């Protein structure tokens, strides 16, 4: 549920994320260095990588995410090559009132033809889940990038410029936080149905990206505020580096840890929002499918053909579950201060 994570208030996200000004050396790190688990003097990224490798849940999560993503990426092509039919192929012998359960053929005996069964039009559910995954993943990734670009630019500018402009910019964010904008997005998408599939997706990217940059802006601002008074920025300014260059070349790279963590956590949130909108019939529309629209379709035939809802729904839940674990794992790895005490 669009669970629009970023509707959370600053107090909440701050306690959740503990955006620290720097990656301080925690007691545990000292212990790790002493015991030889982590080399003293290793870079932040190398440390983080080692911590991530030791976090088994996060590792399993990464593997599953990659497997599902790969399957969605090449699966539809493989299936098309193997069977000669695209994901929305409706077989001639299919009847509109009968769908095959998983692993069953027309005669009712065991068959590998449709591992997830077929939908009411006789289309293979596996092929549809995989190509739906393509769209869900793409929407989630691009919308996250949109929110990343807006949030980082906005937050870094506010944090670096400071003063009145910062006050104003952050007041705007506060105001946007308390608007029920999911409601506005619903109105927007219901009233302006795009004509082309590309237009539809562009609408989704913009709608989802535009509403999920707020928390990112706050995080980046906090980071930049604590970085900007440090000596290396002063040195850069003294040598005459321009403000945009200081922001993009010096401040943002140093604030990257929390940004990566939050971006990873934004992906599942956005994916969920896309599915929520598609479930309501506002996002991806036929003939294209996404996990949300597949689940919506399946929910209508729940009593008779439950697998049409279960497979897309559970695939999506598994993906979200793993993405959340990866995000948590990255947070633990990149920001040792907030590691589970």
């Amino acid at each position, binding site marked *: *549920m*669009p*669970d*629009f994570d970023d*509707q*959370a*208030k600053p*107090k*909440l996200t701050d*306690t*959740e994320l503990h955006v620290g000004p720097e990656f301080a050396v925690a007691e545990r790190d000292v212990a790790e260095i002493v015991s030889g688990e982590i080399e003293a003097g290793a870079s932040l990224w190398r440390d983080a990588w080692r911590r991530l490798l030791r976090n088994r849940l996060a590792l399993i999560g990464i593997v599953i995410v990659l497997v599902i993503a790969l399957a969605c990426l090449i699966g539809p092509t493989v299936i098309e090559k193997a069977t000669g039919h695209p994901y929305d192929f409706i077989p001639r012998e299919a009847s509109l009132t009968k769908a095959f359960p998983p692993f069953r053929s027309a005669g009712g005996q065991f068959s590998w033809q449709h591992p997830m069964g077929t939908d009411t039009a006789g289309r293979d559910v596996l092929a549809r889940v995989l190509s739906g995954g393509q769209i869900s993943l793409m929407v989630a990734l691009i919308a996250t990038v949109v929110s990343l670009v807006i949030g980082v630019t906005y937050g870094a500018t506010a944090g670096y410029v400071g003063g009145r402009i910062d006050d104003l910019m952050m007041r705007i964010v506060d*105001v946007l936080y*308390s*608007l*029920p904008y*999911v*409601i*506005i997005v*619903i*109105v*927007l998408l*219901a*009233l*302006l149905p795009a004509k082309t599939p590309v237009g539809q997706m562009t609408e989704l990217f913009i709608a989802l990206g535009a509403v999920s940059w707020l928390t990112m802006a706050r995080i980046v601002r906090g980071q930049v505020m604590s970085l900007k008074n440090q000596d290396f920025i002063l040195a850069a300014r003294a040598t005459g580096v321009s403000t945009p260059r200081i922001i993009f070349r010096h401040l943002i790279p140093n604030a990257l840890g929390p940004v990566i963590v939050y971006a990873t956590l934004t992906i*599942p949130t956005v994916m*969920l929002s896309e*599915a*929520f909108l598609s*479930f*309501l*019939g506002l996002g991806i529309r036929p003939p294209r499918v996404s996990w*949300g629209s597949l*689940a*919506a379709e*399946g*929910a209508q035939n*729940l*009593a008779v053909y*439950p697998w049409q*809802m*279960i497979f897309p*729904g*559970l695939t*999506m*839940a598994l993906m*979200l*579950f793993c993405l*959340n*674990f990866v995000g*948590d794992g990255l947070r633990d790895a990149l920001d040792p201060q907030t590691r589970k*005490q």
Partner: protein
Amino acid sequence: MPTKMLRFIVRRIIIIVPMLFVVVSLTWALVRLAPGNFYSGEKKIAPAVEANLREKYGMDKPWYIQYGRVLRNIARFDFGTSLKYEGQSVNQILRRALPVSAALGFASYLLALVVGITFGTLAALKQNSWLDSLSMVIAMLGISIPNFVLGPLLVLLFSLTLYWFPPALWNGLASKNIVLPAITLSAIYIAYIARLTRAGMLEVMRSDYIRTARAKGLSEWQVVTRHALRGGLLPVVSFSGPALAFLITGTVVVEKVFALPGLGNYFINACFNRDEPLIIGIVAFIAVSVLVFNLLVDISYAIIDPRIKY
């Protein structure tokens, strides 16, 4: 109440007005600028009939007069007549739909508070035990399973297989019908509240005043319920504000899954039908409730935590 806080509250109440204005204007502009209108549906209407209908609903006037009327209506909290549901005022529809959504939201949030706080507290007290891991995995599941997947799954299990609860429709707060929708809607709050409670309690349990309470010889139960929970639940309180926004989006889906006649269902249908007065009425109502609720949360936050200054 200190004057500073009073000033803060007054300022927050005043800011509600321009924000409501922005939301309503934005919605109205969207409804107006989008191609097509209520009368451009599948059913063709004779031009004369359409002209008469437009006159009846005041839609033949220039746009600024109509816009002015919308604003006036909202100032009086009277949103006019629905185009789709003939002869019914938007206020009547709101009165009918609101109790359904409110009851559902209330039941879900209550369930989420009880279950979430219990799990979160237990996880924090038995940190790093199997109970802790289990609670946190369940919480992660709650965040990861979309409610439009959870709802149908619950229906499949409890309605279509076990026949325990009805699969859909509304029968009032005190009926079996509310059980499945409430569980579906509360899953994600249970997850969030459990995680927030755990984090808050872990921080509080290490603080000095808890050590003092223990040193006074209080039993562990008293330490937790009297002292720790008060501080540890602050994040949960501040979550209640965003939670209402979550709840509203959540009810849209849950009401659709369970075919409940609530606000969310009316709202989606109004959007698809382009029922302008109903869309604007519901948006304005939701905006006001979210803004007021956020204000209440901030005030209660200050009352619970004396350290907060405005």
